[in-house]
């Protein structure tokens, strides 16, 4: 759009420039920026690639490349501690993400569709509070809180802590979807004598589904990736995969960690891409 306008306006200048065998002058183009962008994406993705490549390396030292192998994956899969931690991670993420999504959906319906009311921005502020407080502060505060009220439900404690910080992440896509949604379909449903519940069940809910699914997925990855809060809150039996990896990394790098990490990376990337595609298909 604007780039085209720029092209037309500067075509004369561009022609003159070409005669001097220089790059054509395009308004708003900065030649060095492409290089910076390449460096930027290289910086962003190279470490991830390094990790993936090393995870397939058939070598104890984990740094010198010898031969392609999936041994570390097999070993990681056969490690009982890793399996138990993975199961904990899945349980926590499934329960916390589902709970957070239901809670966030209800809240979004009220905050987006309920009109203005006293305390509206206060409620919104409270929902986004977990995003604003530094994770380490949330971690030690939640630990102190559970210790103070004497709540020790094992996995339950971790699930509660995860639900709290999953709520704003589930809330954001749902809110975005709801604010973009037209109310005409719902009005049509009401014109056709649907009661509130039927209009919600058959019109509003299906329309906001992409937002809900995207929110649930984001909440799920946020939960399954969390280290700091779980590290402080989880007791002996409720170690999650990232906390287990943290322990292994602190003891020294083993190729097994690379393999587990790669699997966790793959899960996150899959979920983000899916959530992106679902949210784009409107």
């Amino acid at each position: 759009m604007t780039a085209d306008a720029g092209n037309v306006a500067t075509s004369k200048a561009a022609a003159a420039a070409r005669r001097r065998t220089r790059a054509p002058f395009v308004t708003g183009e900065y030649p060095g920026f492409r290089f910076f962008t390449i460096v930027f994406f290289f910086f962003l993705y190279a470490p991830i690639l390094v990790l993936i490549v090393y995870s397939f390396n058939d070598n104890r030292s984990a740094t010198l490349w010898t031969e392609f192998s999936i041994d570390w994956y097999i070993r990681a899969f056969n490690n009982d501690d890793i399996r138990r931690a993975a199961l904990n991670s899945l349980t926590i993420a499934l329960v916390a993400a589902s709970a957070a999504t239901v809670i966030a959906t209800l809240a979004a319906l009220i905050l987006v569709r309920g009109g203005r009311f006293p305390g509206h921005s206060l409620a919104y502020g409270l929902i986004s509070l977990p995003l604003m407080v530094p994770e380490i502060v949330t971690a030690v505060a939640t630990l102190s809180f559970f210790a103070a009220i004497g709540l020790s439900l094992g996995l339950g404690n971790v699930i509660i802590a995860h639900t709290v910080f999953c709520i704003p992440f589930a809330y954001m896509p749902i809110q975005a979807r709801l604010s973009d949604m037209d109310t005409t379909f719902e009005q049509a449903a009401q014109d056709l004598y649907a009661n509130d519940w039927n209009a919600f069940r058959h019109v509003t809910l299906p329309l906001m589904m992409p937002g809900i699914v995207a929110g649930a997925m984001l909440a799920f990855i946020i939960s399954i990736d969390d280290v700091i809060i779980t590290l402080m809150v989880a007791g002996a039996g409720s170690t999650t995969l990232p906390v287990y990896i943290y322990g292994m990394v602190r003891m020294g790098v083993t190729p097994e960690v690379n393999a587990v990490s790669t699997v966790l990376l793959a899960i996150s990337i899959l979920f983000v891409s899916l959530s992106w595609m679902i949210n784009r298909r409107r």
Partner: protein
Amino acid sequence: MSALPQSSALRRMAGLMPALLVIGIFMLGPLCIIAAYSFMEASPYGGVRPEFSFGAYRQFLFDLDLDDSLIFNPAYLNIVARSVVLAVAATSLSLVLGFPAAYYIATRPPHWRTVLLLLVTIPFWTNLLIRTFAWILILRDDGLINSVLMWLGATDAPLRLLYTDGAIAVGLIYSYLPFMVLPIYASLEKIDMRLVEAAHDLHANRLQAMWRVILPLAKPGIIAGSILVFIPSLGAFIAPDLLGGGRRLMIGSLIHMQFSSSRNWPFGSAVAMILLAVVLVLMLVYARNAGRGRGEAAR
């Protein structure tokens, strides 16, 4: 107006209650607890003794001498200073790397923009611990960089890269770079390129057009991005813990330590309250900046 009648205060309560209860009890509650703990005395085996005391905040600046006189002890202040310096370094380097990338993405055709933006966001949604761990593989003594350097014959002995402040800074930039790019992109994308053309018509060269037209228009995004990188960098735990080897402390690691090995909960709570206060003030600045940006856009 909507499927939910606005009149129904009862329904409003029912819908909001779960969110407000869960966050109110399990987020505000814990924050109140550590706020209270920060004014109590430490119990020798972890936890607190319920006696009112400013001791935790005093300990932040002063040691007690044998005769109870205060001796200034800059050790903790140094940790704060180190955290601020590292967070500022991470923020400015993120800006240098992130601005050109954001600009380049914002000037692509719309189809390319969405794909490139997704590529920026993907690492943000992947595990921070794992992404930081990948840097250990790259930076350690027998890691990728040292192996390549020694293979090239550039150095005989491995360079000390891991467990340095530089390694922590790289880890921080790597962790939070997307936070810099996304807001800058959002403000650049709205720029009317005819303004840049007008600048060129008035004989501005590229540098002048950037400095006098594009950068001022991108300012809200730059401020937002800088705050969004600075805040988590300041309270970071994973990067200093893994890449700093746990010895080069930042505020985040200091807080963690008080609740694990040092067992001084009141002091840990006091440091956490100080960090929280700084972050909330910065958040207010951010919110006002965002509000002003919206106001200007509306005008």
